[in-house]
């Protein structure tokens, strides 16, 4: 596995760069997307599925910038579905 990892990282970086300019009115959105990305499983980060979602979101946001939140939301939802469950109990 891992064949798509580097390409996925590159696509995600491109998507972030593009969306940073388009979400300047809400600067909390990009860090949130990054945190979703960081919490995703490593197998998903290297998957063809993520590659497809990123390619689609990237090309769509280029065509329809006024739908940027639709594509960010789609990506966040996809990443959330592949998140590592890491709920640590809080020590009192």
């Amino acid at each position: 596995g891992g064949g798509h990892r580097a390409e996925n990282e590159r696509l995600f970086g491109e998507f972030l760069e593009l969306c940073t300019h388009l979400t300047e009115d809400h600067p909390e959105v990009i860090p949130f997307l990054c945190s979703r990305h960081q919490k995703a499983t490593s197998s998903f980060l290297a998957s063809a599925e993520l590659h497809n979602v990123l390619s689609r979101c990237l090309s769509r946001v280029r065509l329809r910038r006024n739908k940027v939140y639709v594509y960010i939301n789609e990506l966040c939802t996809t990443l959330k579905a592949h998140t590592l469950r890491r709920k640590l109990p809080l020590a009192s």
Partner: protein
Amino acid sequence: VPMEEEEDDDDDDPENRIAKKMLLEEIKANLSSD
């Protein structure tokens, strides 16, 4: 002279507006649960 904007309205798309609202609510919920 007032300028007419026709294509440059980010919030004009209803789907985008809903997605934006959902996303911002989720971010807020995440911040408060931390």
